[in-house]
């Protein structure tokens, strides 16, 4: 029997991005190539200013690369798609809509059947501990709850891949850990293809199958690291020597780069 090799769900080839500014160009990305196989969890870590948010916007087709290409299922990607859900850095909930209306937004725009979407929205909100908050406005919610609602919104149309741009970056440390663990639990249940942009090394190692480490300005890939820690993972995973070796190694990569930049 011959095994057909399917192309990765999402892949980037030699992506470069240059922003023209007065007095020269800023190179945000320099020949970045990476693959996100179906059903895997990939994280991109790097210090701020390494172009990781730019990379996510290009992968989401919200921005065009200066050079290189993005493929989804082996086909060039040109426009945003229903199959790609995005969670932004700030929750970006619309303050004039209720929580339920916000989560239902993709259903309206993609013209999905109303009743089914409503049931799914309520199910997602319940799973995120937001039952009873459906008719509240985002202003009434805490930071963590807002970000949970934003994740529900991204998941509503059941995308095949979820792109997350530092989704917990604006939260306090405790809420952030709580949400990471929640994300881990849900991901290990559904195994939905996911790409996470983060500057939190622990979070990246805990959640991911693959961690991509990037250098700052121009954003370049320093190393792609496979994380073979056993699943299911949990809070105890962080106690494993292998976990600490991995985080130590990644920290070393990033800080060596910083020192080079400083000298």
């Amino acid at each position, binding site marked *: 029997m011959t095994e057909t090799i399917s192309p990765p769900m999402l892949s980037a080839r030699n992506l470069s991005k240059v922003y023209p500014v007065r007095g020269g160009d800023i190179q945000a990305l320099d020949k970045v190539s990476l693959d996100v196989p179906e059903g895997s969890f990939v994280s991109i870590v790097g210090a701020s200013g390494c172009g990781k948010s730019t990379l996510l*916007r290009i992968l*989401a087709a*919200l921005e065009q690369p200066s050079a290189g290409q993005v493929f989804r299922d082996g086909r060039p990607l040109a*426009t*945003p*798609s*229903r199959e*790609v859900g*995005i969670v*932004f*850095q*700030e929750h*970006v909930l*619309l*303050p*004039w809509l209720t929580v339920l209306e916000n989560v239902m*937004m*993709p259903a309206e*725009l*993609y013209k999905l059947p109303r009743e089914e979407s409503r049931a799914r929205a309520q199910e997602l909100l319940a799973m995120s501990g937001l039952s009873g908050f459906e008719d509240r*406005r985002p*202003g009434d919610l805490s930071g963590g709850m807002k970000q949970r609602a934003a994740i529900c919104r991204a998941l509503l149309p059941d995308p095949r891949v979820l792109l997350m741009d530092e989704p917990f970056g604006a939260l306090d440390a405790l809420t952030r850990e709580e949400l990471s663990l929640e994300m881990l639990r849900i991901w290990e249940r559904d195994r939905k293809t996911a790409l996470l942009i983060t500057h939190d090394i622990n979070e990246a190692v805990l959640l991911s199958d693959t961690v991509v480490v990037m250098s700052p300005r121009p954003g370049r890939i320093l190393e792609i690291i496979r994380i073979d820690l056993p699943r299911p993972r949990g809070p105890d995973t962080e106690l494993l020597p292998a976990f600490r070796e991995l985080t130590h190694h990644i920290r070393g990569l990033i800080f060596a780069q910083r020192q080079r930049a400083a000298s």
Partner: protein
Amino acid sequence: MARFWRSEWARLVLPCISLATLLVGWQLLVQGMDIEEWILPAPTAVGSTALDWRTELFQHSWVTLYETVLGFLVAVAIALPVSVLVVYVPALHYTLYPVLLALQSVPKVAVAPLITLWVGFGIAPKVMVVFLVCFFPIVVNTVAGLRSTPTSMLHLMTSMQAGPWQVFRRVRLPVALPSIMVGCKVAITLAVIGAVIGEFVGSEEGLGYLILTSTAQSKTALAFAALAILTLISIVLYYLVELLEKLLIRW
């Protein structure tokens, strides 16, 4: 004591007390110094004159109110689509908008005689002056509001393949709504002034006309009564717009 200052009672009753004190002081001043009524009438004299002239006052108030509200509504009806065009059509943004900004600096009071010259007497020139004073604050604020959409919200909408109309209706317009209401609140306070100026320039009815003729005939108390009604109209219209704002913006 701190709690007293934050209570409903302090918020509502104290302004009334200070207003009453002002009126009583005014009354005592006029009576104590024996000021003649044609120079400064006492509040009681203004009150009794208002009562004597109530039919005329009502008619003239109605005219001024009508001019004010009509001019304001026409301004809203034209300013909103013009703002949308300025924001969405780049050609207009660079051609029409600078002209509008330049016109905004023309003192509308000085233009009022010209408008009467062009449009003639009757209600039209007054509505036109009201329109002019209202139009620019609404346009300027609406344009600023429509331009202030956060990029993150635009990215969100694009990522969900929203069309331009959906982006406008679901994001740009709600984001702009508070600014639009600020423009309307500025406009409505100017609207009453615009109507009175229109009437000053040339008219046979309205509170502005009444003030002009009554002062000319030394019926100062009647002028004060008209002035009090103008103030009342101004305040009531402002609060109506604010009420509308509260109904529209509930987040």
